[in-house]
């Protein structure tokens, strides 16, 4: 449940570029990943793909709600994403919309904990125009204070539609409970009071643009009916003069969690929810921690798992069961989520999950099931990347997590290295009650069975 909450010739000659081309590594990704870093540190990634006439143009900016360290500024990265559509001197809002419409592309943007992604998928023959439009706003964004104040209402509208859902309320409360110092304590849309105060933050928005919308924080990914020469040429022409900035930031470190925490949402007439959220690792391809947790999520909790067959299929106490973690730059949460039939079964379901996790810590998993899980993950990925958008999206993940799209191969190679021993080690280090936040939805004002859930084990 939780994991479901979860969207860019001449100058080239004038400004010589670092044309080092990082070769694609061997691995699961079946297409060449052609990278060029311009002199201004802007990384330009091209993946030629057989999608006649269509290209996906992504710009990943490594700024998200994780970077909202200042008091009263939660939700600002997302709000700023909205402002990026408010025009420039060359293309004021009306003109921008007109040109965008003439391109006939699917264009949008989305923000999350660690990044903001701008994407435009459309006619590959219009790539030049796409580059021109994107470079103009990334380098020359200009909006009035009046437009700034007005846009805030749209964010409020987004909050309002999202938070009609009890799942979103639980998601917000869970992260706010699990994190005390780190900025993952607020969700990407921000706290309501900060959203309401956004119209008063015009000056800060100028500062925000100056800090983050810089080539060293950005990567361009183009996938589809294109050549690297064409993409690089356009990147140099339109983004070559984009100047690097100087802003550096320290994100508060989350102190070690030493006790089980609890978050509850009261909701009448709604299926009860039990969500166990453990502090997980930061994403890296340099060790197997996240790979092992991904394997556990699939092997131990998917439709083929014993606990799924017992609780969902045979006993019908649980309507939906799944487990997994968001891949995040800093340590995030790895969750087991169960939507129950009756709230009276919550203790039993919690005990079943606890028992399974204890077993993962003490007994090696079946080697055949482990190999099947690796196969499942590999084929699942291979079947997903069958269009330019999905391919660009897949590489964008790597860009914001590691800075390098080619780590997609290492990410999947790491799954192959996961052994039963690694799983036991990872379960023992991460799936412990002192790192746990239990969150629930039920009709109770306060959940009365807290003690039965062994919260203070």
């Amino acid at each position: 449940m939780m994991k479901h909450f979860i969207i860019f010739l001449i100058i080239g000659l004038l400004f010589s570029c670092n044309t080092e081309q990082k070769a694609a590594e061997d691995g699961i990704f079946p297409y060449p990943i052609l990278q060029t870093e311009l002199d201004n540190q802007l990384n330009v990634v091209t993946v030629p793909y057989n999608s006649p006439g269509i290209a996906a143009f992504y710009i990943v900016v490594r700024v998200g709600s994780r970077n909202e360290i200042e008091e009263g500024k939660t939700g600002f990265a997302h709000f700023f994403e909205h402002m990026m559509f408010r025009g420039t001197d060359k293309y004021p809002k009306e003109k921008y919309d007109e040109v965008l419409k003439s391109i006939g592309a699917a264009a949008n943007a989305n923000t999350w904990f660690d990044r903001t992604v701008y994407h435009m998928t459309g006619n590959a023959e219009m790539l030049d125009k796409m580059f021109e439009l994107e470079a103009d706003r990334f380098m020359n964004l200009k909006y009035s204070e009046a437009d700034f104040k007005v846009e805030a209402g749209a964010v409020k509208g987004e909050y309002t539609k999202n938070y009609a859902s009890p799942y979103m309320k639980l998601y917000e409360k869970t992260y706010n409970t699990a994190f005390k110092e780190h900025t993952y304590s607020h969700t990407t849309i921000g706290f309501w009071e900060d959203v309401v105060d956004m119209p008063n933050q015009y000056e800060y928005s100028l500062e925000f643009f100056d800090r983050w919308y810089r080539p060293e924080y950005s990567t361009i990914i183009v996938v589809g009916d294109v050549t690297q020469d064409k993409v690089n040429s356009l990147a140099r022409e339109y983004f070559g003069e984009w100047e690097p900035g100087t802003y550096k930031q320290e994100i508060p470190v989350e102190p070690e969690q030493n006790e089980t925490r609890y978050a509850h949402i009261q909701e009448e007439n709604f299926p009860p929810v039990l969500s166990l959220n453990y502090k997980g690792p930061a994403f890296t391809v340099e060790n197997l921690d996240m790979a092992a947790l991904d394997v556990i999520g699939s092997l131990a909790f998917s439709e083929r798992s014993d606990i799924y067959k017992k609780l969902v299929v045979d006993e019908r106490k649980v309507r939906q069961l799944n487990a997994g973690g968001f891949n995040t730059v800093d340590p995030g949460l790895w969750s087991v989520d169960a939507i129950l039939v009756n709230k009276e079964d919550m203790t039993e379901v919690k005990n079943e999950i606890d028992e399974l996790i204890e077993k993962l810590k003490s007994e090696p998993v079946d080697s055949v099931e482990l190999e099947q899980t690796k196969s499942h993950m590999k084929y699942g990925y291979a079947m997903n990347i069958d269009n330019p958008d999905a391919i660009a999206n897949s590489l964008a993940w790597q860009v914001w997590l590691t800075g390098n799209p080619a780590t997609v191969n290492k990410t999947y190679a790491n799954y192959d290295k996961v052994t039963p021993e690694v799983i036991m080690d990872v379960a023992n280090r991460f799936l412990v009650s002192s790192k746990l936040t239990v969150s629930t939805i039920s009709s109770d004002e306060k959940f009365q069975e807290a003690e039965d859930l062994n919260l203070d084990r």
Partner: protein
Amino acid sequence: MKYLAFIISLFVTSTIFGQEVVELPSASTKVVVKLAFKNGSICDPEGKEGLTNLTASVLAETGSDQYTKSEINDLFYPMAATYSTFTDKEMTTITFQVHIDFLDEFYEIFRGVLLNPTFAQSDFERVKSNMEVYVKEVIKASSDEEFSKKALEEQLFSGTGYEHMKEGTISGLASITREDVINHYKNYFTRNNVVIGIAGKYTSSLLEKIKSDVNKLADIDPAIPTLGEVKMPDGIRVQLIPKPNNLGTAIFTGYPIDINRASADWPAMAVINSYLGEHRKSYSKLYKLIREQRSMNYGDYTYIEWYEAAGSNQLPLTGFPRSQNYFAIWIRPVQTAISLTSQYPELDGIKIGHAHFAIRMALMEVERVKNEGLTQEEFDLTKQFLRSYMNLFVQTPAKQLGFLMDAKFYGLENYIDYMNEAVAQLTLEEVNAAAAKYLQVENMYITMITDQAEAEPLKESLLKNAPSPMTYSNVVKESLGEEIFEVDKKAEVFPMNVKSVEVIPTTDLFDE
């Protein structure tokens, strides 16, 4: 354009064993197969609303004569192969996706489910329980936007085969037995009402097997009920559904239009619709007026056909062809009075939030387009946009296949190709004539999911056609130009032909 030629050149259709087959061979290692049955929730017997969708849903969650569902899960797990079903008003599609490395192995197991599903009592009860909790609780609590759409359709299609949502009603689901599901599968998922679609690097022997197996389904001509007449309402009929402490009012409106993808006026209305409210596009008129200029919500769009899961999809899905459509306006949640007064002291005392003003603003624009039409410049730009944009609907083999199969429902070969040509041929006069013919603001249904405290004041305001001045916060008000307020003065008194307003508790929805 060359990519259109690419798509067109690759698909072939044929008729074998009486079943139509859409083939889309490609180098893709993912093979996608769709079996599209012409049935849908219109086939649900009276008193058993939800039967077709439940039958399809249980099929996806049950075993075969050889394997239980759990055993099938075990077998398919290493392949990452999936199969699922999707039901709409007039069609159910079974889709499977598998890598070519496992094609034969997968299909041998899948065919058992297709031909000899067990519909085990426990699988039936499990899936039915999930469907019941969706209809009774989840749809009413998890998204006011989806809730408003399902509730609107229940009003708009009242007394016809489209009335109940595909998931069913509380009493309809309660009365469905396992035997009903078994019989419904036999009678409505037959060799005589199915189109086979296949895409990817499949083998001819696989296709032959699929054809042969589909031919083993029951040799029954399903009795598909007629839809019945979908009547234009007399005046504006409003349904208010209050919920406690709601920050927003979700709004969805509609009135029937007698055109579909095969109609001569469809391409012209597609241009009008795109201009007025293309889904999730910032350059359409309603979005500009309500969201961009006035800061009222997250987005505002119009539709001339159903858009599945619109809240989570930027591009359209497939599998829901309908012979009857309606013109719809989707106004995403606008602020309620409790939300506004809690944020802004200057708005203290207001009883109604932005809903009444928002719907008036939308209707005023629809009426303007009906009367004035598009300018040549607007027409040319929208045409150019649509011809390029619609190609993005078919970026994957699965989407290409889905659009081709939906086209068959309407008697078309390739909808995307057809629209590209048809839109190119349109003249401004044709488009503006279509706007004059199909747009209107006098008669429609409106559903609003709103705040408990706002329902009665809003009802009174709507019934009295009372002025509904926009209540801006000071911070927004000081940022707006005089031209905005000039338009607002007209919008706040825009006459609405409201004939009835009903306040309906959530518990009364989808009960029978």
